[in-house]
C-alpha cells in the first residue's frame, strides 16, 4: 500500500545495497523481507535490492567477490574455503546459529546414526565439506550422487538419503504424500557451521556505517519476523517467488522458530540474533586444516570474520 | 491426326498387317500427358506434352523413335516404364499396367550410374535387385562389360570415366538383365560413329537371340533405319505420332546393309519426313532474326 509506494519512490540519498540470496525467497530470508516490508532499511538510509537465488544461489560468494552484490547469504565453512581461495569475503553476521543442512531419511531407514552411512548412497552436493568431514571422522565411505534440488527421489524411494534444508523439505515431502522424514543433523556430528551473511570485504571496509545500519535493520527484521506479524514479508516473498504457498511459508517459519535456528538453540531470548562467535570459527578452521583443505595457519579468525559491524 | 498411316518401304505399320497378331507387348490407348506447371499451384495449366495417342507394339518388334528435341520421346518412355503416369488413357505392357509384373529395362538418357559403386558393381545393380545369384551375376557382368568394351575399366569409379564410357556402362547394366522389353533413350548419343555402329550390330545380334521388344530413341536416322523393324516419327507440341513406318530391310543386317541402295533410300526418305514434321522446331527463330542474336563483344 502506502509504504510500498514510498519504498518504490525516491531512492535519492540512499546507499544502494544488493543482496544475493542463496535460493528463491523463503522464510530462511525472513530477516531481509521483514525489514524490507517494514521499511527499516529505508529508514536506515539504505536502498536494498534482494536478488533471488536459484542457480546463482550456488555461487553467492563469487557474486559477492566480483562486486555484483555487496552482501549475501551462505554457509560459513564453505565461505572459509572461498576466503582461502583469495576471495575478498568477510563473514559479518549469523543468519542461523546452525546451518540447517541435514540428511533426510525415511523414518524406517535402518540408518540411525552417521556411522551407519558407510556404504550407502547419498544425494548431496559434491564438494560439501561436511561429506569429507564425515568420512574422516567416522572412517566411513559412501557414494555421492549430485543434488538436484528435488525431493522426488526421496519420496519415491524408501531407502533414499539426501541432503536438505530441514526447515523446508519436510513440508514438500509430506505434501508429496510421504511420511515426515527423519534428520541426521550436521551439528550432531560436531560440524559446527553457521548460516551467515557475507560481505565483500573491500566494500565493508569502505562502507562500515552502511553495513552496520544494514545489519541492525536485518536483526530487527528477524526479531520482528519471528515474533511479530509476518504477513507483509510473506506477501513480498510470494511476489518474488510465486510458488510460495501460505502453508509452506507458515511451516517453514514455524520450523525456524521451533528449532531456535536464528536465536540459538540454547538461547532464552532474541539477544543472540546475528551474533557470531570467533571461537566457533576457530573450530571450523581446524576442521578444514584437519581435512587438509587449507594449510595450517593459512586462515585466521580475525581475517575471515568480524563482529565489528554488529549492533552493540 | 495422331497417326499418319503411311505406305512406306514394304508396308505401313498397323494392326492390319498380320492375321491374328500375337497379344501386344506394349499398348497405349488415348494416352496423354501434361505436367503441372510449377508456377501455378492449381490444376495443370501448361500445354500438354503428349497429345492423346494410340500405339500397339507386338512382341519382338524393334521400334525406333525419332523426333525433334523436346517433343516428348523421353516422356513416352517414362510413361511406358511406369516412372510417370499418364494424365489420361491406359497403358499395358505384356498385359500388365506399367511397373507391375513387367520385365523391362530402361537405358536413361543420362547414364545415372551410382557414384559410390565401381563400374562392375554398377553393371550388376539391376541384377542384384532381381536377386540373380552371384555366379550368374558375375558371368553376365563380364559379358556385358566386354560387349561395351569396358572390361579394362571394371574397377574404376564413375567419376573416372569419360562421358561415352559412362553411357556404355549404363547400356551394359540394362543389357545384363536380359529383359522382355527394352527402352533405350539415345544410348549411343555420346559415342563415336564407329563404336555406335559396332554396338548397333551387337544389339541386333542380341535381339536376334533374345527377341525382346525394343523402343529405341535416337537422333540418327541412319541408326534408326539400320536397327529398327519400325520407326515412329514424333511431331512436337503436343507430342504425337506423325509417321508410323515399317522397315522391311532383310536380316541379318550387317555392315553391308549400310551400303545397300534400299537402306540409303530409306534413310533419305525418313530424314525428309522427319524434317517435315515441324518446320519451326529445333531453333525458335528464323535465321534472319537470329543473325541479330549474340552480337560482337563491346
Amino acid at each position, binding site marked *: 500500500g502506502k509504504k510500498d509506494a514510498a519504498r518504490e519512490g525516491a531512492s535519492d540519498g540512499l546507499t544502494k545495497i544488493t543482496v544475493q540470496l542463496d535460493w528463491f525467497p523463503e522464510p530462511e530470508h525472513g530477516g531481509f523481507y521483514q525489514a524490507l516490508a517494514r521499511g527499516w532499511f529505508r529508514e536506515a538510509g539504505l536502498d536494498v535490492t534482494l536478488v533471488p537465488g536459484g542457480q546463482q544461489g550456488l555461487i553467492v560468494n563469487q557474486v559477492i567477490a566480483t562486486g*555484483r552484490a555487496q552482501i549475501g547469504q551462505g554457509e560459513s565453512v564453505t565461505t572459509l574455503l572461498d576466503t582461502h581461495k583469495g576471495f575478498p569475503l568477510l563473514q559479518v553476521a549469523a543468519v542461523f546459529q546452525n546451518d540447517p543442512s541435514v540428511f533426510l531419511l525415511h523414518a524406517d531407514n535402518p540408518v540411525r546414526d552417521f556411522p551407519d552411512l558407510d556404504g550407502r548412497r547419498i544425494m548431496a552436493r559434491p564438494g560439501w565439506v561436511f561429506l569429507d568431514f564425515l568420512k574422516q571422522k567416522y572412517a566411513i565411505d559412501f557414494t555421492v550422487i549430485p543434488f538436484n*534440488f*528435488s525431493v522426488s527421489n526421496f519420496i519415491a524411494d524408501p531407502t533414499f538419503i539426501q541432503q536438505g534444508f530441514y526447515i523446508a523439505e519436510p513440508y514438500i515431502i509430506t*505434501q508429496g*504424500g510421504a511420511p515426515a522424514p527423519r534428520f541426521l543433523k550436521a551439528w550432531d556430528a560436531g560440524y559446527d557451521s553457521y548460516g551467515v551473511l557475507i560481505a565483500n570485504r573491500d566494500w565493508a571496509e569502505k562502507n562500515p556505517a552502511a553495513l552496520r545500519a544494514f545489519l541492525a535493520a536485518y536483526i530487527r527484521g528477524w526479531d520482528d519476523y519471528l515474533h511479530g506479524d509476518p504477513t507483509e514479508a510473506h506477501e513480498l516473498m510470494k511476489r518474488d517467488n*510465486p510458488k510460495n504457498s501460505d502453508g509452506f511459508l507458515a511451516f517453514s517459519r514455524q520450523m525456524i522458530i521451533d528449532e531456535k535456528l536464528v536465536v540459538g538453540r540454547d538461547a532464552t531470548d532474541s539477544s543472540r540474533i546475528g551474533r557470531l562467535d570467533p571461537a566457533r570459527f576457530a573450530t571450523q578452521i581446524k576442521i578444514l586444516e584437519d581435512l587438509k583443505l587449507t594449510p595450517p595457519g593459512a586462515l585466521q579468525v580475525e581475517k575471515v570474520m568480524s563482529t565489528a559491524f554488529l549492533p552493540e | 491426326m495422331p497417326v499418319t498411316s503411311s505406305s512406306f518401304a514394304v508396308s505401313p505399320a498397323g494392326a492390319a498387317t498380320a492375321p491374328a497378331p500375337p497379344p501386344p507387348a506394349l499398348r497405349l490407348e488415348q494416352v496423354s500427358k501434361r505436367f503441372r506447371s510449377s508456377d501455378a499451384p492449381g490444376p495443370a495449366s501448361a500445354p500438354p506434352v503428349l497429345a492423346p495417342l494410340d500405339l500397339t507394339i507386338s512382341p519382338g518388334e524393334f521400334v525406333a523413335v525419332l523426333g525433334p528435341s523436346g517433343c516428348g520421346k523421353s516422356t513416352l518412355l517414362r510413361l511406358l516404364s511406369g516412372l510417370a503416369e499418364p494424365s489420361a488413357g491406359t497403358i499395358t505392357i505384356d498385359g500388365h499396367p506399367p511397373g507391375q509384373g513387367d520385365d523391362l529395362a530402361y537405358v536413361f538418357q543420362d547414364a545415372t550410374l551410382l557414384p559410390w559403386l565401381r563400374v562392375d558393381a554398377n553393371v550388376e545393380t539391376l541384377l542384384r535387385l532381381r536377386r540373380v545369384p552371384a555366379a550368374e551375376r558375375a558371368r553376365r557382368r563380364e559379358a556385358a562389360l566386354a560387349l561395351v568394351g569396358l572390361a579394362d575399366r571394371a574397377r574404376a569409379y564413375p567419376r573416372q570415366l569419360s562421358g561415352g564410357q559412362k553411357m556404355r556402362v549404363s547400356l551394359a547394366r540394362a543389357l545384363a538383365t536380359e529383359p522382355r522389353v527394352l527402352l533405350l533413350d539415345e544410348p549411343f548419343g555420346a559415342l563415336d560413329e564407329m563404336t555406335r555402329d559396332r554396338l548397333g550390330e551387337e544389339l541386333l545380334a542380341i535381339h536376334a537371340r533374345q527377341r525382346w521388344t525394343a523402343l529405341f530413341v535416337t537422333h540418327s536416322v541412319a541408326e534408326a533405319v539400320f536397327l529398327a523393324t519400325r520407326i515412329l516419327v514424333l511431331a512436337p507440341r503436343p507430342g504425337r505420332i506423325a509417321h508410323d513406318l515399317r522397315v522391311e530391310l532383310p536380316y541379318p543386317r550387317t555392315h553391308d546393309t549400310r551400303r545397300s541402295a534400299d537402306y540409303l533410300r530409306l534413310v533419305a526418305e525418313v530424314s525428309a519426313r522427319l524434317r517435315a514434321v515441324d518446320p519451326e522446331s529445333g531453333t525458335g527463330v528464323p535465321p534472319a532474326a537470329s543473325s541479330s542474336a549474340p552480337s560482337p563483344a563491346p
Partner: protein
Amino acid sequence: MNARLLRWLLPLALFALLLAGWQALHHSLAPSRRFLLPSLSQLAEAFRIHGPALLVAARHTALAALAGFALAAAVAALASLLLASSNLVRATLYPYLMGLQMVPIIIIAPILILWVGPGAPSVILVTFLITFFPLVVNTTQGLLSVDRAHLDLFRMGRAARWQELLLLRAPAALPYFFTGLRIAAILAPIGALTADYLVGSSSGGRLGLGMSALLFSARNEIPALYATALVGCVLGFALVAAVSGISWLVLHRWHDSYPLSDK
C-alpha cells in the same frame, strides 16, 4: 482404406495409444511412485492452475529462444561461408568453433552469470551456443559438398572466390543449411529452457520456463513440471514447423527432396 485418410488416422491413433499407455503406466506404478508420472487429469489440472503463469514464462523463453536461434542462424551462415572460403581458414578456425561447442554449458553457467549477469542476455547467449554448432557443421558440409561439375563451371567462368562462394556454394548448401536449421529449431526452445534454468533471473517474479521448472522441481510439483516441459515442446514444434515451411518455400521448386509431381 484411403491413403490420405490413413495419413491422418495413423498418427492420431498412435497418439491416442501413447496417451492410453501413459495412463496405464501411471496406474501400474506403486501408489507412492505415481506422482513421478502424473495422470492425464493431473496434467490437465496443472495446466488449468498454472496455465496463465506458464504462458507468461513461455513468452519469455520463446523470445529468448527466437533471439538465440536467429543469432545462431545468422552467425552460422557467415561462419560457414568463412570456413568454406579456404582450406587454410578452415584448418585454422574450425577447431575453435568445435571448442566453442564443447564448452560445457553447465560449467560455464556460473561464469556467464558473473560476466554477463543472469537473465535474458545470458539465456540468449546459451541458446546461441547450443544451437550454433549443428548449423555450422551442416552448412559447412553443404558448402563443401558442392557438385564437382558445377565447380568446374565456375572455375571455367573464372569466378572470383567470393562469386563461387555466394553464387554457387551458398545456394547448393541450402538443403544442408535447412537441415541444420531444423535441428537448431528443435534445440532452441529447449536450450532456452535449460539456459533459463542455469542462468535465468527470477528478479521481479518474472520467471522463464527454466526457472519455473526449477521451482516446480524443488517443490515437487511434478504435474506442473511436466506441463512446463510440454510447453517447451510446443514451442519447439512451432519453430520446426516454421522452418519446414520456409524450407519448402525455398527448395521445393528445384531440390530432389521435394519430388516433382510426375503423377
